[in-house]
């Protein structure tokens, strides 16, 4: 659910934010007209930003409920946690060796190092965008607590972080989620809430072994066909939308400045 909300809000922010950033170009003008013009695109960007902040706060509460306080160390650094550990560094080294054909693939567990990277990129990126976004939304109020030139820094950080997020998500994350041979045509785990045993054994053998040892393996069956059709349409729409923004952003990149 959090991922779905993040997906919808992120795509909206990317579209409205880029329409503002590229407003001096024909593509930017056209994009902002889709939202009813420059001012309306900005208003939507602000409101969806607020929704993202609320979502992030809710996520923090959700995390607090998931922590097993009696067994804090295992809960925070265990294999079901997204907190990076030395094991991830080891997996990264092993996987690079595998990519170069030097050693067998690592025995990955529930969360891989690239998934943890994705998670933490959002985890620090979202507060950065939130704080700088609020400063830019309420510049007069913000300048009561800090010098006005902080707004210059805020604008730069907000734009640069947004560009980084868009590039990473639309190039790396989309490829990993949709287009790499193991995931193609789509990593259904995000919507279905489960993955096939074959896929789990192939990519996350340590996780399968752990679940079998504990007797926690569940046979949930495939999701209904209508639901699969729905999320395939949704997923590929998001992919097409992301690629459209990415390609136009790259084409018109020479016309924009970070400041």
């Amino acid at each position, binding site marked *: 659910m959090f991922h779905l909300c993040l997906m919808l809000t992120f795509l909206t922010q990317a579209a409205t934010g880029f329409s*503002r950033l590229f*407003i*001096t170009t024909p593509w930017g003008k056209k994009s902002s007209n889709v939202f009813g013009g*420059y001012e309306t695109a900005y208003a939507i960007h602000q409101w969806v930003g607020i929704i993202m902040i609320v979502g992030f706060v809710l996520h923090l509460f959700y995390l607090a409920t998931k922590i097993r306080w009696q067994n804090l160390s295992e809960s925070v650094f265990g294999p079901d946690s997204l907190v990076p550990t030395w094991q991830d560094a080891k997996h990264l080294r092993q996987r*690079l060796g*595998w*990519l*170069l*054909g030097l050693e067998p693939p690592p025995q990955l567990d529930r969360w891989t190092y*690239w998934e943890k990277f994705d998670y933490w990129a959002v985890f620090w990126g979202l507060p950065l965008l939130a704080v700088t976004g609020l400063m830019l939304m309420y*510049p*007069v109020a913000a*300048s*009561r607590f*800090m*010098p*006005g*030139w902080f*707004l*210059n*820094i805020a*604008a*730069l*950080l907000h734009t*640069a*972080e947004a*560009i*980084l997020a868009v*590039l*990473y998500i639309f*190039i*790396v994350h989309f*490829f*990993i989620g949709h*287009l*790499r*041979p*193991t995931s193609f045509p789509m990593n259904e785990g995000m919507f279905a809430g489960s993955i096939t045993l074959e896929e789990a054994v192939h990519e996350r053998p340590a996780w399968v072994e752990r679940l079998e040892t504990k007797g926690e393996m569940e046979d949930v069956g495939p999701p209904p066909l209508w639901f699969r059709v729905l999320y395939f349409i949704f997923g590929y729409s998001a992919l097409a939308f992301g690629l459209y923004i990415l390609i136009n952003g790259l084409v018109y990149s020479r016309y924009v*400045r*970070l*400041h």
Partner: protein
Amino acid sequence: MSLLIRIKRHSWMMATFLTALILLPQDAPSQEEVASAIRRYKDREVSSGYYEEYEIKPRRQLPLVGVPGVSRGIFPYSPSADKIGTRSRLADSHAGIKFYERRRCDECHGEETKDIHTTRANLTCRQCHGIEPIAGINFYYSPLNPIRRHAYVCSKCHEGASASFAGYVVHEPAPGSPTTKETFPTLYYAYWLMLVLLVFTMAFFIPHTIMVGIRELLSRKRKAEHDDTDAT
């Protein structure tokens, strides 16, 4: 008889006019403002707002007026006037510039016209810098003098703007340039920090992702070949 007809016709016209006045919507200046590119600023100031048409030209100064004993003709009013490097304290910061009245601001201040106030809010230079003669921003009576900038300029759009708010650098320097390291170091380091982060992230993950794709393709091919061999 004809007079009566004329009065009758006029009364119809009057009645139509009055009905139109009552029934039709009132004049809506906002319609014109929405169509105008400079609408965002127009309702916040007392001048016409049509800078490009009426106020872009500097004050009239006859080109043949000379300074007695110094110079004469269309060339600088003072031989040294166009050589003044720092003009930020002059009452007329463009004093003595040749053919000034025929020039546009962006001919000399091209970079300054790329800030977000110009490109996104459609402001023109004179809307902040004031009418001709444009005083240097540090001239005592300039509206852009830091002692009153927030009240005279910023607060036209940003209601409640404080002196701290006016510390926002409208004409930002290029954040990555070496001179910015001296003039605005925080901006410089923030820019390089984000650029390094972006380059490192993409430089690692793009090749990583491509290699994963290739490796998985090869593994799948090998597995298919292996399965075929097993089947035969």
